[in-house]
């Protein structure tokens, strides 16, 4: 730090008080011009004053630091100028508080807002000038908006001034007598770039024209055009007739190309144009006017028609197969994604928001998890979900694209027109059968699509008749002939029953199909809703058929199921809702220990086909799985009927999990329980840890030795097993069931062979099977069955088990990056400063905010208190001052009075003395 003296000199130099000021001559000159000598002296005084103040040690107050602390800490208030700040405060108060004080208890008053009135430094001329400009400004602001006169801006449309645009309109008004019909064509469409009117270009450069000029121009122009047209009209007339005559041929050409109008185009126009071709001609003769307008309309529309594209090349068989394979692969890929639970399942994003951390595992009420567990619940983070969703979307788009690309010819989308006669078949093929998608094509793929003719809608009389061996096969065509071709779309099951009452069961597929064709959503507005109701009807009818005491023809049921499937695809939400309702009811029935119906089994089967059961979560399948599991766990195999139902349920479990291979403890339990219940001799100790529910002590289901005869092992017959009247031989049934359960056991074993707990899962299976082959059991079992167990089941199971044992390793689930030990030593901060408040290093943001706020509040409070205190001091001081003044005045007054009195007194005494001396004198 330079010495005090040096610093003084420096500052004096800077202020230009001493030394040679290094200024250019110009600057000097300017400076001299600017200020008179007096001014210069004044500024010099001011500069000196400030320098003096700066260097006055008594003006500055310093707090001495006792120890200097590391970290370069700045202590607030170490240096201060108390007198200056006091002065400032005093000034401020004098400006505000004092004024207030003086105006207290006073009401009203006039505030002088005249410019410069209280500024004594201004000349009156300047004042007046300034006042005048202000007044002018105020005036001009107000009037500006509404002043039309001096408006330089011009309203424009498409960059042209509006003044030039309405020319056409004016012209139209002018020559109202004009009967020229061609004019609209000439005028063209406002958006048609090529036909943009020349007038526009003419008026392009924004040249100012008066109104009269414009009008004149317009009139001239219209007259010119009129002449022009009249001249052309005659010339065109002949040509036009000629063209009209040839129009039919042109149309024929256009129609020959299988171009379809673009989507969204009104249907009527085309149809009318199409249909009334000859009528057109007639009308033309009768009244040229009408026809021409029609013709114009159609021509105009034709300009919008897409150029017909060349049809796609017919695909070769390899290409078709390839496309189809691609499609299938895509489907499989998305399925696998869903199976892993990667795809965003329904409503998850919303749910996460609304449910918060309440129900993360989705286990129902009362389950709570911290927010950081969210990822467990859905397996993904949001971003992934979104990503996959978009992926899915793009997949779908891709699908559509592929569809369109695959199909030969311009591929009809679903919302295309109806003018095409073979729309239905096309549509349904695309809906129902990927084969059809690939091999579709009206012209080329016909052979193929015929060869794999199984499409629901395509095959008119194929459904029941496809099996000529069937009893319904013969009835099919006959029934068809008797069947009416139109049916109302039944909205309730009762209506449907009424409709179908007269017809045979075998005709059902035809009826359903005709209803669907007749009420296709594209045919009428309300059809979509009608069909979605009809889907529920089909659903109900399936239940109805399944619950009939006699078995309906299986292929009818099957076709109904397939109809349900394709309808479900059209109305996924409605069908899912219906399925869920049904599941809830079924679940309640299980709870009430009611009998299981055949329809329950059929609906669950339908569900396994209609919905992808391998999904990690599915709005329909997940509840269905729960329902099946509940059934299996609450219906112990205590009689033959339950065994049969249970066997079907276990089959369904296998069917549901055939791809995803998820573990269903209930199904395995059921198989074990059933095997225990069926075994000829109860096992000495029930193996495994499945709940026995006392089945080991039920003896009525045991396979007895009497049933040991020659027996063909076969599949369970739906017809026999589920229609109790037709159970002919209980003993045979038992064996068949045992066989089925053994097979299912094996199927489960194969399904779960990759599970780490495979050995534990199948341990009871091994012991049960070996129990079946023990000498006590073997004698009451038929040979074929024991042979099956000994030769196929047991070795297979053992093979799987030994394989699993061989590859068994201890779990190594926690190969995570080791969690850092929570460290509590202070985090080193490069920019750490003691000046920053401690609170600002807080990691907790809320707490940080809070402490900040608290500190601020404290500071403000202290400041306010200080201000108030100072205010009151100021007031006291001012009052004292006032009083002092008043007192002084009083004293002065008194003094004056006393003086005056004394003066008078003095004068009087003087006079008296004088008088007395005067009197004495004469005595002397």
């Amino acid at each position, binding site marked *: 730090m330079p010495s005090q003296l040096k610093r003084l000199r420096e500052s004096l130099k800077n202020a230009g008080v001493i030394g040679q000021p290094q200024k250019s001559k110009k600057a000097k000159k300017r400076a001299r011009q600017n200020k008179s000598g007096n001014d210069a002296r004044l500024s010099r005084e001011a500069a000196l004053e400030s320098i003096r103040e700066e260097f006055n040690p008594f003006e500055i107050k310093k707090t001495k630091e006792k120890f200097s602390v590391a970290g370069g800490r700045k202590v607030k208030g170490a240096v201060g100028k108390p007198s200056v700040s006091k002065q400032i405060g005093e000034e401020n108060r004098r400006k505000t508080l004092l004024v207030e004080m003086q105006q207290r208890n006073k009401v009203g008053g006039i505030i002088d807002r005249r410019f410069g009135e209280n500024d004594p430094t201004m000349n009156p001329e300047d004042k007046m000038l300034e006042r005048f400009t202000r007044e002018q400004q105020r005036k001009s602001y107000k009037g500006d908006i509404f002043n039309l006169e001096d408006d330089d801006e011009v309203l424009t449309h498409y960059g042209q001034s509006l003044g030039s645009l309405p020319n056409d309109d004016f012209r139209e008004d002018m020559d109202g007598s004009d009967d020229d019909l061609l004019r609209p064509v000439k005028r063209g469409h406002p958006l048609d770039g090529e036909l943009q009117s020349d007038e526009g270009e003419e008026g392009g450069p924004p040249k100012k024209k008066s109104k009269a000029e414009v009008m004149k121009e317009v009139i001239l122009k219209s007259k010119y055009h009129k002449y022009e047209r009249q001249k052309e009209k005659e010339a065109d007339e002949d040509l036009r007739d000629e063209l009209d005559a040839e129009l039919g041929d042109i149309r024929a050409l256009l129609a020959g190309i299988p171009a379809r109008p673009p989507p969204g185009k009104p249907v009527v126009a085309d149809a009318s144009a199409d249909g009334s071709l000859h009528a057109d001609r007639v009308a033309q003769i009768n009244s040229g006017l009408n026809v021409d307008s029609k013709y114009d309309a159609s021509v105009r529309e034709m300009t919008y028609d897409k150029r017909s594209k060349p049809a796609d090349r017919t695909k070769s068989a390899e290409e078709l197969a390839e496309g*189809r394979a691609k499609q299938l692969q895509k489907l*499989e890929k998305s399925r696998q994604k869903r199976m892993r639970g990667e795809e965003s399942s329904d*409503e998850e994003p*919303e749910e996460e928001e609304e449910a918060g951390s309440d129900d993360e595992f*989705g*286990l*129902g*009420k009362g389950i709570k*998890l911290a927010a950081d*567990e969210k990822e*467990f*619940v*859905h397996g993904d983070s949001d971003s992934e979900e979104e990503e996959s969703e978009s992926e899915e979307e793009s997949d779908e788009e891709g699908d559509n694209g592929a569809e369109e690309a695959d199909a030969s010819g311009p591929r009809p989308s679903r919302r295309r027109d109806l003018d095409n006669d073979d729309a239905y078949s096309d549509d349904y093929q695309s809906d129902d*059968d990927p084969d059809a998608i690939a091999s579709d094509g009206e012209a080329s793929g016909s052979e193929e699509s015929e060869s794999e003719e199984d499409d629901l809608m395509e095959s008119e009389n194929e459904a029941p008749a496809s099996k000529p061996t069937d009893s319904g096969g013969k009835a099919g065509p006959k029934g068809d002939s008797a069947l009416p071709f139109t049916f109302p779309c039944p909205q309730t099951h009762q209506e449907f029953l009424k409709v179908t009452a007269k017809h045979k069961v075998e005709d059902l597929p035809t009826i359903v199909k005709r209803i669907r064709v007749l009420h296709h959503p594209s045919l009428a507005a309300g059809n979509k809703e009608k069909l979605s109701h009809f889907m529920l009807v089909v659903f109900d009818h399936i239940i109805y058929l399944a619950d009939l005491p006699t078995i309906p023809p*299986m*292929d009818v049921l*099957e076709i109904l199921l*397939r109809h349900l*499937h394709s309808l*479900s*695809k059209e109305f996924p*939400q409605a*069908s899912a809702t219906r399925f869920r309702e049904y599941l*809830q009811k079924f*679940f309640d029935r299980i*709870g009430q220990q009611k009998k299981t119906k055949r329809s329950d089994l059929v609906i669950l089967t339908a569900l396994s*086909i209609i919905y*992808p059961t391998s999904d*990690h979560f599915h*709005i*329909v399948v997940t*509840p269905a799985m*729960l*329902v099946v*599991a509940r059934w299996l766990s609450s219906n112990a195999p205590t009689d033959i009927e339950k065994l049969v139902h249970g066997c079907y349920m276990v089959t369904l479990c*296998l069917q549901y999990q055939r791809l995803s291979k*998820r573990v269903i*403890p209930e199904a*395995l339990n059921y198989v074990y329980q059933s095997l225990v219940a069926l075994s000829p001799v109860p096992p000495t100790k029930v193996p*495994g*840890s*499945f709940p*026995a*529910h006392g089945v080991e002590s039920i003896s009525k289901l045991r396979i007895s030795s009497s049933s040991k005869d020659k027996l063909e092992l076969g*599949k*369970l017959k739906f017809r026999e097993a589920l229609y109790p009247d037709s159970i002919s031989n209980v003993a045979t049934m038992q064996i068949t069931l045992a066989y089925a359960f053994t*097979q*299912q056991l094996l199927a489960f074993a194969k399904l*779960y062979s990759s599970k780490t*707990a495979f050995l*534990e899962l199948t341990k009871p299976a091994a012991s049960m099977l070996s129990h079946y082959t023990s000498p006590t059991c073997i004698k009451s079992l038929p040979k074929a069955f024991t042979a099956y167990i000994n030769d196929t089941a047991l070795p297979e199971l053992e093979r799987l088990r030994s394989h699993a*044992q*061989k590859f*068994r390793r*201890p*779990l190594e689930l*926690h*190969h*995570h990056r080791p*969690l850092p030990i929570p460290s509590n030593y202070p985090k080193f901060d490069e920019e750490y400063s003691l000046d920053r408040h401690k609170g600002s290093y807080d990691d907790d943001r809320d707490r940080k905010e809070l402490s900040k706020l608290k500190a601020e509040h404290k500071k403000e409070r202290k400041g306010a208190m200080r201000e108030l205190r100072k205010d009151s001091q100021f007031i006291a001081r001012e009052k004292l001052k006032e009083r002092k003044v008043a007192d002084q005045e009083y004293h002065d007054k008194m003094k004056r009075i006393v003086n005056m009195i004394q003066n008078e007194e003095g004068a009087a005494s003087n006079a008296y003395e004088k008088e007395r001396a005067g009197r004495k004198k004469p005595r002397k």
Partner: protein
Amino acid sequence: MAIPSSNGPLSGSKKRKRVAADESTRKPKSKPKDLPVITKAVILRPAPKSKKPVEPTSDENDEEEDEDMASGSEDDEDDLASRQAEMLQLEEDIISAKTATARTKGLNSLLEQLEDESEEIAIMTAVGLCRTFCRLMSRGQLVRHKDHSPEQLKMVKEAKETYINYLNGLGRMLEGGEGTSLKLSMRLLKEESIHMKPSDDYYFPFLTYGVIIKHLLLSDSSDLVTVFAAEYIYEFSDLRLEFFKAIPTVSKEIPPSNIRYSENLFNILYNLKDLPSTSEELTDLNLYLPAPTKKKHPLFQIAAHQRYFQETWLTLLSRPLPSKQRDILTILPKRIIPYFPNPRLLMDYLTDTYNTGGVIALLALQGLFNLMMSHNLDYPNFFPKLYALLDRDLMHVKYRSRFFRLLELFLNSSHLPAVLVASFIKRMARLCLAAPPSAIVTVIPFTYNLMRLHPTCTFMLHRVLGKEVDGKALRTEGYVDPFDEEEVDPLKTGALESSLWELETLQSHYHPNVATLAKILSEQFTKQQYNMEDFLDHSYTSMLEAEMVKKITKDPVVEYIVPKKIFGEEEKKDDDGILPPAQNMLLEFWDFE
């Protein structure tokens, strides 16, 4: 006679019901209605002879009340009326009889009539006898007095004998489920307490009460027992206390094999609620008999109430009652143990039930735990027995959540050996392989918590085999699970060396939520503890409900391909073998044609 006999049982039962149910409420307010009957009865009865030297003024009232009661049985039929008149005459004779023989003779004839086949008459006689004895009692003719003459003494003695016989007769009627007899006997009880006190202060006729209780509890009609319990035992504190007092002695006379008796006793005790628990509650009691004057009477001592309560329960528990054991164990912790002055006496019972195993043991566990916690019960082999409770049915019983709550408590100590905890974990995991999802959902967070508490157990989730393992053997035979399922002692199962493959497998459980929950075991253990309460009470119903609550917002995915055949084999086409169709499991096992 034909008409009344056919009518008899019906009207009798009707009356009985009315008597049983209505009498207590009817008495005070329904005088006007009964008035004509009373006058009739008064007319029928000859005027009382004024031979007796002193007739207490209260006698008249008593008689009136007697009539009131009697009015229930004397009704419409003339025949009955005439018999009634006869009986009334006989009663008068008995009361006015001066010799022992005359009186005994009269009483005996009435007693014989008590055995009458006709229920109607039997009841009437019982009522008459009750009236007679009440009057005798009120005249002091059932109590010996020092200034009695020998003849009088004999009269008293014989009257007493017949009185006891009469009581037994009433008891038999009670056993038959006769409602009126209950009424009568309770009335006699009251009379006795007033007129037959040996000294001036409070007297409870416990002998009579004992007889009543004994017969009542032997009765077939549970209705009567319920009525008795509801109207007397639960209502009046003194009756309840004396009931408790009487039970131990009465029970000694009944062989333990008598299930009827035990069940009746159980029913009374099971529904007994709001017992006093502090002495303050005993100040303003509802008493059947006039209250004792002494402040220190056992009736006002909480200790006495509790002691007799305890004895009664112990008596009941000492009798075999397998059908009700579940109920007893359910109410034991909340409604019995707190009122026991010495709950340790329940130890034997609880230990025995616990040792039986199964669901009963689950329930006994709670009681045992109470005793261990608050009464310093030392239970040897507790954990092996607890381990044994984890059996195949555990996951499927109704009391599962109750058990898991306790198990959480028991295993919550961090001082338990990790080996033991590992055994429990492994056992639970095994059971999970056959458990419903609701149980799995309980076990997984529980396992997680245990692992947090005993970090050694995480070896069951993560074990990297080191050099000590024979690599070659491992390659050929795989890792042999060291866990011994059959081992009873949880310290020796070797579970700690095993792995939780079971829980890992459950990560592919069919229920998506269970599967994701199971995944917490393979994630990093960042959470301190799961709150078990959230996972305990689930069922299929609650889980399905949780599913059904979800709304369909997006179109659910529907299988794209409509299969050509559902119930039959699809014809094979070999146009493309890229993706073989998933096999249809339905067709594997079922033939739909």
